């Protein structure tokens, strides 16, 4: 999304069409079914693998559409990525610590 586009929306706020949000909701429900189905039918590696791919995808749909990040100024997405980076660093350091004890 371009800056100019986002700026224009800051003044004339963007209303996401209801139909699109319903589509996002259907996608989220289907993705949940896929994760649950995979974990029941293929417990173990496959089930975990599916969950590890699908769960972040669900999170992205919620953030971008329900939480509007796709339509906000880029600074909001950068702020979010910064928070995620902090979490990743904390997680990385913790695991580094535990794996070298």
């Amino acid at each position: 999304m371009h800056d100019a586009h986002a700026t224009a929306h800051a003044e004339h706020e963007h209303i996401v069409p209801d139909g699109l949000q319903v589509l996002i909701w259907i996608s989220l429900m289907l993705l949940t079914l896929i994760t649950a189905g995979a974990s029941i039918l293929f417990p173990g590696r496959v089930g975990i693998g599916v969950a590890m791919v699908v769960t972040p995808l669900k999170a992205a749909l919620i953030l971008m559409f329900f939480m509007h990040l796709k339509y906000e100024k880029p600074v909001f997405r950068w702020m979010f990525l910064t928070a995620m980076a902090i979490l990743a660093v904390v997680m990385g350091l913790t695991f580094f610590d535990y794996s070298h004890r």
Partner: protein
Amino acid sequence: MNTQAATATGHVVHRDPVGAKTGMWLFLFTEVLLFGGLFVVYAVYRQMHTADFHEAAYELNRYMGVANTFVLLTSSLTMVLAVGALQRGQAGRSLRWLGATFALAAVFLVVKYFEWSAKYSHHIFPGQEYLKELPHGQDLFYNLYFMMTGLHGIHVVIGMIVMAVVFAKIRSGAVRAGRHGMLEYTGLYWHLVDLVWVFLLPLFYLTA
């Protein structure tokens, strides 16, 4: 950016919607890091006690977990529909969607109540002697389960209280089209509660 609106009395009201939204997101980041810390604890203990986590997770009812995911995802949809309706100036419609969101939040807690009651009747509850007799990893799993879903449940209750306040403010007209920030930020909070649950589902119910 600042927007200035002249009221009927000629009084100039200063508002800063972008600043307000930035503040709301900053608060949400503190929430992400709060739950994130618990996810780190979960990850480390799961690494150390993989077999115990696997064994303990069998006790959880995955169908209830999935059902509650459907409930929360649907409540997120009704929340965005409430915001959209108010943005278009349809206050009545917005109130109905907000009411639906509140009701779905209550359904989530009722399902949670039955889940926890079942665990309690099996003496699986923090502080129970029975837990201490289990392998250490299982004890850790159940305690993390109650801590994380409990903290999440508290967030659901707070969300319901805030929804009730916003509901009253939409009815009184204090929150309306063009002044719908309070509903919008309540929505952001509610979606974050949904987002946390999206991660709790696979970690505890599906793939442990």
